[in-house]
């Protein structure tokens, strides 16, 4: 099987010596957001986390929402490459390089946020040299670094024609690795036995499903933007396949989310937590229903499956809605899960100077928001420079006769 047969002979994306329209402005905008984020991180490090909305109860705030989104989306952005390499679909295989580039970019953005939100980011070398193998967090560091190495190798093999035969086995390795990685990321929460919002074996498969949906949404937006930038639209048949796939992934996330909450509702001891998340915990219940269920689930499902919304704009809107819903879902999961009081004395009403029995306060601060946006900006910049440097766009000439629809 020869990889990227048509692209290899296509003219480069942009003629040598010319910059694409708006490249400098886009790069400058991305760099500006990144610079503000780095400034915010420096401010947080200088003053300590006292300048954030986090405290000793909600210890992971908005930066973790961004970081987990970017890390899961990184794994999911590899969907197209996986379908191409693991299942041998030619239309997907031609877009494998873009898929891998997005995966690398998103992971870099997510890890940047995660590292700069540490209390001691300068001790990263300790994290890289001291491993507690009972910690899923330590395993995740290995998984993230491995993902970088494998996807980088995969990208190289996709761009360098002489390595093309190797791209399939490396693609399969990347596929297996990303499933393990997302399992590991979900287990960061799933293994938290003490917290009512987390301790569940369902979190890992839920995170896998979320990564599939969110990463595909990012890929759809990137592919659409790149196509319009080049003035070369994405083949209709291919876009429609991805649109349907997005709908299936969104439905899978909805199913697992429903099962997680229904399982909890069955246990009397979990009922107060579910009441908090689904009914009266502000702003979590609103974010869950309006943000996740409404914008993040119902809207993209309608846009993905209703024949009236088959156009490229509706597909882009569906992808955007999935991303908005993802942030709402993560905010509810990560922050709502911490805000709900730990039950240390079952059967007792409690009161203390540390708000035992009370909902923990959390209002995100600007530096946190900037740091999170900085992760998005870094991912954007890496993707932007990547598509500028390498020929990643399969042109219409790539489309197989009769389209790719099955």
């Amino acid at each position, binding site marked *: 099987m020869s990889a990227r047969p048509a692209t290899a002979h296509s003219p480069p994306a942009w003629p040598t010596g010319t910059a694409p329209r708006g490249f400098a402005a886009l790069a400058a905008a991305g760099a500006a957001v990144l610079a503000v984020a780095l400034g915010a991180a420096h401010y947080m490090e200088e003053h300590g986390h006292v300048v954030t909305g986090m*405290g000793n*109860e909600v210890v992971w705030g908005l930066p973790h929402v961004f970081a987990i989104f970017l890390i899961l989306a990184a794994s999911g952005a590899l969907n197209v490459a996986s379908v191409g390499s693991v299942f041998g679909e030619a239309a997907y295989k031609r877009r494998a390089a873009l898929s891998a580039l997005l995966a690398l970019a998103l992971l870099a953005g997510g890890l940047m946020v995660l590292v700069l939100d540490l209390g001691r980011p300068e001790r990263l070398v300790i*994290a890289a040299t*001291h491993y507690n193998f009972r*910690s899923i967090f330590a395993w995740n560091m290995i998984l993230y670094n491995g993902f970088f190495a494998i996807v980088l190798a995969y990208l190289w093999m996709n761009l360098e024609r002489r390595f093309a035969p190797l791209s399939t086995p490396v693609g399969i390795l990347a596929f297996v690795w990303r499933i393990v990685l997302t399992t590991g990321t979900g287990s960061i929460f799933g*293994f938290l036995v003490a917290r009512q919002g987390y301790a569940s074996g369902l979190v890992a498969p839920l995170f896998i499903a979320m990564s599939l949906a969110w990463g595909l949404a990012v890929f759809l937006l990137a592919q659409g933007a790149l196509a319009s930038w080049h003035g070369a639209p994405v083949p209709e048949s291919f876009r429609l396949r991805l649109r349907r796939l997005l709908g299936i992934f969104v439905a899978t996330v909805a199913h697992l989310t429903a099962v997680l909450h229904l399982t909890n509702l069955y246990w009397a001891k979990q009922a107060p937590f579910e009441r908090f998340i689904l009914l009266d915990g502000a702003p979590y219940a609103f974010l869950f229903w309006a943000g996740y269920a409404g914008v993040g689930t119902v809207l993209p499902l309608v846009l993905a499956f209703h024949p009236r919304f088959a156009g490229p704009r509706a597909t882009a809107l569906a992808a955007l809605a999935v991303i908005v819903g993802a942030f709402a879902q993560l905010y509810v999961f990560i922050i709502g899960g911490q805000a709900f009081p730990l039950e*240390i004395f079952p059967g007792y009403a409690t009161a203390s*100077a*540390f708000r035992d029995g009370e909902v923990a306060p959390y209002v995100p601060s600007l530096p946190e928001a900037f740091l999170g946006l900085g992760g998005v900006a870094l991912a954007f910049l890496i993707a932007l420079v990547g598509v500028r440097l390498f020929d990643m766009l399969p042109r219409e000439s790539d489309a197989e006769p009769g389209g790719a629809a099955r």
Partner: protein
Amino acid sequence: MNPVDAGRRDFLGRSAAFAGVALAPGVVLYEIALARETGKAASPAVRWGMLVDTTRCASGCTACVDACHAEHGIPAAVRPTDAQWIRKVELKDLRTGAIRSAPVMCQHCAEPPCVDVCPTGASFKRADGIVLVDRHTCIGCRYCMMACPYKARSFVHEPTTGQKTDTPRGKGCVESCNLCVHRVDKGGAPACVEACAQAGHRAIVFGDLNDPASEIAVRVRAATTTQLRADLRTDNGVLYQGL
């Protein structure tokens, strides 16, 4: 006062002074005998623990909290970002209406979730059961705080002032009750235990749970005690009586 009485008083005074001088080194030596030798590792034969008698713990009394703050140079906790090594929790039994009060601090679990999840191994448990944070390898990820079932850990959110020699603290690291390890290693008891006794409550007993003759072991054998969140099987070193 007749001369006989004066002589008797003088004799009693001198005797008391002599007894004091004679006994004082003995008391010090007794403490030294209990103390751990410098350079010698903590013994796994020992399991340091505390028994909190909630029937003796006075509602509204914060002697243990104040003593802890003074001992470790921790400012009083006002904001959600302030350190909380120990706190007093007021409890009301939802079925009977009974009122209890109890201090909550690091429970020094035999199976500590904070140690399990720490990526760098900065959270660790000493052989004698004391759970500590190595400030040199803590990267401030706060995963241990997510894992702790007792809200017992604090993150240092801002630059510290007024540090004590025995309690190094630093912005960006996680910390928690260290069972006054500097005192314990010298044969003493944690500051909260002493303060509670001085306040006349004696609601906290400290000692070696593995030593059958220790007061704590005797009390634990005689009374019904509970471990917080016993369902998690973390086998806490802090036990509660009267809950």
